[in-house]
C-alpha cells in the first residue's frame, strides 16, 4: 500500500492528467494548476473558470533519477532506460508543474530550455495503465 495512488483517486484527476485542465481565478485572474479550492495567488478567490493549458513552457529545474532508486511502480521504466529525467516546467500561463522529460537533448538538459507537453503512459498498476502528461523539447 504505502504511497499508493488508488484508481478512484487517479480517475478524479483525469482532466488534469489528460488535458491539463487548470482554473482561472475570477478574483485575481491568475491560473492555478493543479486546481485548488482557494486560489494560490490571491489566497482569497474560490470561484474559477476552467482553462485548458497550452502545455508550452520552459524548464525551471531538473534532475535525473538513477535507475536503482526509482519508485517501485517506475522500476520497469528505470530498468529499461537506466535512468530518466524529471523536470519542473514553468508553463506559459504561469503555473509550474512537475513531470518526466522524454527525448532529452544529447547535449544535456538546460534550465530555460523550451518544452511542450505530450500524452504518455506513466505506469501500470492493478491492471490499469495510468496515462498522463510528460514533456519533450519544443
Amino acid at each position, binding site marked *: 500500500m504505502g504511497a*499508493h495512488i488508488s484508481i478512484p483517486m487517479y480517475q478524479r484527476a483525469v482532466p488534469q492528467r489528460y488535458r491539463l485542465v487548470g482554473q482561472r481565478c475570477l478574483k485575481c485572474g491568475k491560473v492555478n494548476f493543479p486546481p485548488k479550492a482557494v486560489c494560490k495567488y490571491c489566497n482569497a478567490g474560490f470561484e474559477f473558470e476552467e482553462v485548458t493549458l497550452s502545455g508550452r513552457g520552459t524548464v*525551471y*529545474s531538473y534532475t535525473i533519477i*538513477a535507475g536503482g532508486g526509482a*519508485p517501485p511502480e517506475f522500476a520497469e521504466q528505470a530498468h529499461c532506460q537506466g535512468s530518466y529525467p*524529471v523536470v519542473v516546467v514553468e508553463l506559459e500561463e504561469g503555473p509550474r508543474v512537475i*513531470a*518526466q522529460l522524454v527525448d532529452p537533448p544529447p547535449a544535456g538538459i538546460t*534550465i530555460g530550455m523550451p518544452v511542450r507537453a505530450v500524452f504518455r503512459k506513466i505506469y501500470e498498476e492493478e491492471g490499469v495503465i495510468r496515462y498522463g502528461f510528460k514533456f519533450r523539447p519544443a
Partner: protein
Amino acid sequence: MEGVAIIGAGQTRYGDFPTKGVKELFAEAYLEMLQSVDRGLDPQMIQAAYIGCLSAGSGFQLGQLAPLLMGHVGLPHVNAVRVENACASGGFALYNAACAVASGKFDLVLAAGVEKMRDISSSKGRYWLGVSGDTEYERLAGSTFAGIYALMATRYMHEYGLKREHLSMVAVKNHRNAAANPKAQFRKAITLEQAMNGVPVAYPFNIWDCSPTTDGAAVVLLCNARRARDFTSRPVYLRGFGAASDYLAIHDRSSITRLNATRKAAAEAYKQAGIGPRDIDFAEVHDCFTIAEILAYADLGFCEEGRAHYLLEEGITQLDGKLPVNASGGLKAKGHPIGATGCGMAYEIFRQLRGEAAEPVRQIKNARFALSHNVGGSGGTAAVFIYQRGDE
C-alpha cells in the same frame, strides 16, 4: 504563557537493530531520559505525551501508537497522542509538548519520536517513504524524495553558482562529526574525493548526499520552568519555538531555493526568544540531503540568501568554527529515524549545553544559545527551537 524547560533527555543509538522493535527502541530512550533527571523523578507525575512517528513501526500499528508505547513503559493513562508531519514529526511533537506546558495545563510533558525503518524490504520501504511531498503529483512524475531535493539543488546551482564540491563539503563535515559521536549510525570520516564520487542517486546527488534509513528513538521531558530546579540542577530552557508550513508540492511554491516554512518558523522562534541569528552559538539543522543544510543557513538567518556555500568554504560551520552546525553528525551521518529526528536534535543540544557531549573532542565550549531545525519532507512543514543553557 508559562516558561518551558527541558529537564531530561534520552536517545537510543541510531542504526540498524534487528532485535529491537518500536516498543523496545522507545523504552530504551525513555529509560535513559529518566536516568538523566539528576534530582530524580516519579514517572507517574508525567501528565501528557506527544509522540512523533511517520510509519508507525514500518506500518504494523497504523493507529494509536502513542498509547501502545506509553502502556509499555508503565504510563498507561497519560494523555498520549501521535503527531505526524513526516520527517518533522519529532519536531512537531516537541512543539506541541512545549505548547501544552506553556498553556499552564500541565507541568510535566513528554516529547518523543521513534521510527523503525529497517523491518521491511527496501522495495516496500520505497513505497512507504514515497516522496514525503505531494504524492499525487510528485510521485506520479516518477520522482523520489531525493529527486525533489535534487530539483532544488539544480536550481540553486543555476541561481547562485553553487558547485558539486559544496554539496560534498556538507557530507565530509557531518561524517567527520559523526565519527566522534558514539550514538551515530556512521562513525567514519570520508574524504572530499569519496564524497564527490559516490553512486548516483538523482542528479546532482550521489549516495553521499543522502541520509540513510535508520532505526532509533529519542525522548525529551519538558517541565514548567518554575519547577525545573526541583528535578535538575542544570535545566536547559526552551526560549523560543516556532512552526509553520508551506505548499507541499514544490511546483506550487514561488521559490525552490528557500524553505518558507523554515523562515516563518524561525521568525516565530527568534521573536519569542528575544534573540537573533547572531546570538546562536551552535545549531543542529535538518540535512536530510546535503542541499538541505545549505538552504538552512540562509533560511535560519546565518547568512544572506544564495551565500550559504561560502560559510562552508570558510569553515564557519565546522566543529571548530564560529558557528558549529550538526556537531552530532546530522541526519546525514548520525542517521535519520524519521519521527525521532526532531527530538534527537533536542537530545544533542541538551547534552551539549550541560557539558555532557559524550566525547571531550566533540564538546562545544562556552555555548549559551543553541538552535534546532526540523523539516517535514521537502519543506511542507518546519519547526525551529531556541535553547538556553540554564546554569547561569
